[in-house]
C-alpha cells in the first residue's frame, strides 16, 4: 500500500481537509444541523388546535350545539364567531384562520321539518397540512350533526336506539394506516429530507475536494503523490471523507431510530448498511459529474441542481408513480431514492429483504459506474484549467 502512494495520499487529503473550515461546515455541521432542524421542527408530530371561525346565521339551540361540537374538537380552535361569510373570508385572506364553518339561517327548523338544510364548510387548501386537517375536522362535525338529528328523530318515532347505528351507517370503513398508526408526519418528512440533504452535501463536498485541486492547480501534485495512478489518487482522496460521512450517517441513524423512535420493523443492520452505501453512492455520483465536467462551476451546478431536485424524488407526499414518465425515470438516477425505498420496505413496513434487495443493489451500481470516465478526469488533472 505504502509503495503505491496510498498512505501519502490519505495523509495529504487529511491535511487539506484540516486547512479549511469549509470541510468541517459542509461535511459535519450542515448535515447535523439539518437533521436536528427536521427533528425539532416536527417534534409535535401532528398540528392541533388550528384556528378556525364559525358563521352562525341561525342562532338556535341546535346551531349552538353544532358550534359547541366544533369547539370541543381537538383539531380545531374556534377563534372567531364571524357575523357573515364575507367577514370569515376576510379572516382567511389575512391568514388568521385556516377555514370556517357556515350554519345556514333556519337550520334548526329546516332540519326538523325535513327540508334538508346544507351545512357548508370552507378550508384554505393553500396551506397543505392545516387545510387537510381542518377539512377532516369539519367533515366529522357535519356527519355527527346529521347523525344526531336523525337519531333524535328516530328515537322520538319509537325506533330502538340500538338499531339506529346500523340503520344510519350500514357500512363502516376501518382504515388502518400500516406502520404509522399515530399518523406521525415527522416519520415521512424527517428521514427523506434529512437523507436528501446528507446526499446533497456529500456530492457538493466531493466536488469541492476533487475540482478544488483543479482550481488550485494542485491536481498534478495530487496525482504525483499517487504515483500517477488515478485509481489510487481517487481512493486515497475519497476514503478519509467516506469515514467522516459514515460517522455522520451513523449518528443520523441513531437520531432516527434510537432517539426519535421511528418505526424499525426490519433490520437496523441493513439500514446502517444502506446509509453507508448511500454515502459512497453519492460520492460516486459526484465523481462521475466531476469527470464529465472537470470544471468546478459546472460540476457544482449540476450536483446542486440534481441534489435539490432529489428532494422531490424521495420525500414528501407526491409519489413518483404519479409524475410524468420522463421525470419519474430521472428519479432512478438519484441515490437517495434507493435509500428511501429501503427505508420504507425494511424499517417502516418490515418486509423481508427479498422485496428490497434490488434497491440495495441499486446503491452498489453507482460506485461501479463512476470509473467509466476516470481517464477523462486524469487528463483534466494533468492539465488543470480553471474556468471561473
Amino acid at each position, binding site marked *: 500500500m505504502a509503495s503505491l502512494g496510498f498512505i501519502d495520499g490519505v495523509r495529504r487529503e487529511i491535511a487539506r481537509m484540516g486547512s479549511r473550515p469549509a470541510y468541517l461546515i459542509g461535511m459535519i455541521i450542515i448535515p447535523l444541523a439539518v437533521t436536528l432542524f427536521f427533528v425539532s421542527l416536527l417534534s409535535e408530530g401532528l398540528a392541533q388546535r388550528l384556528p378556525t371561525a364559525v358563521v352562525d346565521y341561525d342562532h338556535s339551540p341546535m346551531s349552538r350545539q353544532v358550534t359547541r361540537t366544533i369547539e370541543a374538537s381537538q383539531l380545531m380552535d374556534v377563534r372567531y364567531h364571524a357575523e357573515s361569510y364575507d367577514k370569515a373570508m376576510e379572516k382567511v385572506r389575512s391568514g388568521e384562520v385556516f377555514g370556517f364553518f357556515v350554519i345556514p339561517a333556519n337550520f334548526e327548523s329546516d332540519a326538523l321539518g325535513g327540508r334538508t338544510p346544507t351545512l357548508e364548510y370552507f378550508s384554505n387548501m393553500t396551506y397543505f397540512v392545516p387545510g387537510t386537517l381542518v377539512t377532516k375536522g369539519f367533515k366529522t362535525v357535519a356527519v355527527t350533526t346529521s347523525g344526531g338529528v336523525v337519531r333524535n328523530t328516530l328515537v322520538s318515532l319509537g325506533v330502538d336506539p340500538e338499531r339506529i*347505528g346500523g340503520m344510519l351507517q350500514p357500512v363502516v*370503513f376501518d382504515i388502518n394506516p400500516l406502520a404509522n398508526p399515530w399518523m406521525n408526519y415527522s416519520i*415521512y418528512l424527517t428521514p427523506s*429530507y434529512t437523507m436528501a440533504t446528507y446526499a446533497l452535501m456529500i456530492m457538493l463536498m466531493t466536488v*469541492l475536494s476533487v475540482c478544488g485541486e483543479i482550481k488550485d492547480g494542485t491536481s498534478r501534485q495530487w496525482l504525483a503523490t499517487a504515483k500517477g495512478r488515478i485509481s489510487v489518487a481517487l481512493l486515497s482522496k475519497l476514503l478519509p471523507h467516506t469515514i467522516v460521512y459514515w460517522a455522520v450517517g451513523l449518528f443520523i441513524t441513531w437520531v432516527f431510530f434510537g432517539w426519535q423512535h421511528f418505526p424499525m420493523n426490519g433490520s437496523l443492520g441493513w439500514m446502517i448498511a444502506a446509509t453507508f452505501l448511500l454515502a459512497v453512492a453519492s460520492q460516486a455520483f459526484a465523481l462521475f459529474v466531476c469527470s464529465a465536467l472537470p470544471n468546478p462551476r459546472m460540476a457544482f451546478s449540476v450536483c446542486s441542481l440534481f441534489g435539490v431536485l432529489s428532494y422531490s424524488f424521495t420525500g414528501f407526499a407526491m409519489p413518483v408513480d404519479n409524475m410524468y414518465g420522463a421525470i419519474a425515470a430521472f428519479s432512478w438516477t438519484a441515490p437517495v431514492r434507493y435509500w428511501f425505498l429501503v427505508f420504507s420496505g425494511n424499517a417502516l413496513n418490515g418486509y423481508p429483504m427479498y422485496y428490497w434487495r434490488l434497491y440495495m443493489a441499486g446503491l452498489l451500481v453507482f460506485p461501479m459506474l463512476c470509473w467509466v470516465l476516470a481517464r477523462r478526469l486524469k487528463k483534466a488533472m494533468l492539465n488543470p484549467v480553471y474556468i471561473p
Partner: protein
Amino acid sequence: MNPFRKIAGGFSAMARVFGNELRTIIHDPGVLLFFVALPLVYPIIYTLIYNEELVREIPVAVVDNSMTAESRQLVRMASASPTIEIYAQCPNMADAKRLMAERKVFGIMEIPANYSKEIGNGRSAHVTFYSEMSRLLRYRDFVSALADLQIEMTGEIAKQRIENAGMESFLSAEASLPVRSQSNFLGDTQQGFASFVIPGILILILQQSMLLGIAMLAGTSRERRRRNGGIDPLGVVAPPLATVWGRTLCYTTVYAAFTLYDLHIVPLMFNLPHFGSATEYLPFILPMLLATAFLGQSLAPFMRERESPFILIVATSVVFLFISGLTWPRYAMMPLWRALGDIIPATWGIEGFVRINNNAATIADNTRPYLWLWGLTVLYMCTAIAAQMLIERRENRKRTQCAGSSQVD
C-alpha cells in the same frame, strides 16, 4: 462641503456602482447561471415534477371473504371511485400483503365473511382497509375516497332501511339524510399538489437564486482581492452607503423581469391558481427583493471563495421552505424556528404572496408580512453597510501590509 453637493456626489457614486455591478454580472457566466437560468428554468422543472397534481387510480387489492352480491356491489362502487383502481382480487390476506410488499398495490380492502349478513340484519358491517404509509398523499386520498364511498353506501342502504321501517315520511324525496353537508376548498380548489406547492417555491426561487448570485459575486471579488494585495481591480471606490444601495438597485433591476415572469407568466403557463392582482403582488414583493439583496450583501464577509455559496447556501433552501410555514403551520413550531423564520424575507414573501395569489387577498389584508418585509429591508441595509465597512477595513489592512512588506524588500 455643501450638503447638496455631498448628496449629489453620493448619488453619482451609487450610479457608478450600479453600472459597474451590472457589467460584472454580465461578464460572469457563473453569476448569470444563478441570476438568469435559475429563475427562468427552475419553476418549469418544478411544475413539471408536480404537474400531475392528483393521485389518481391508486392500485388496491381486494380480499372478499363474503363473496355475495352485496360485497360485489361494494367492490364495484369502490372501483368507480377516481382514486381507487382494483388491481387484483386476492383469495386471502397473505397474497394481498405480498402484492403490497412488491409495491404493486398500496391499499388492501378486506371484506368480512359476515358482510351481507350484517347488512341484511340492519347492523353496521365493518370493512377493513389497510393503507401503505410510505407516502402521505396516498393515505389522504384513500381516506377521502372511502369517506365518499361510505356516504354513497349510506345513502343507498339507509334510505331503503328507513323505508322498510315504515318511516318514509321522515325522509325528503331527494335526500337520504336530514342535513346535507358541502365541503368547499379555497385557494387550491382542486387540492392539487402543484397548485399548493409551486406558488411558495416561486418566491423561494427568487430569494435563493439572488442570494446565491450575490454570494458568488462576493466570493469572486474576495479572490480577486486576495490575488491583488487587497485591491479588487474590478471594484469601484465609493462610500459604503452608496456601494450598498448601488448594488441593491442593480440586483433589483435585474430581477424585475424575472419577478414578473415567475409570479405572473409561470402560473398562467401551467394554469395554477392565479387570482391576485398584479398591482397587489408586485408592490408586495418589492421589499422582499430589496431585503434579499441587502441580506446577500450582509453575508458577503463569509464568502471566502467563488464556490462558497454552493456549500453554504444551497442546503438552506429546503430549510427555508419548511420554516416558511407552507406545509407545517408556523404557530406549531418551536419558538427558535419561528424566530429564524421571522428574519428570512421569503417567509413573509411566501405568506403574503400565496394569500394574494391563491386567495385573492390584498396588501391591506397582509399588513403584517408587508411591514415585516420593510422592517427586514431596513435591518439588512444596516448589516450590509456594516459588512461592507468590515470588508473595506480588511482590504486596507491587507494593503498596508503589502505596502509595508514591499518597502522592506
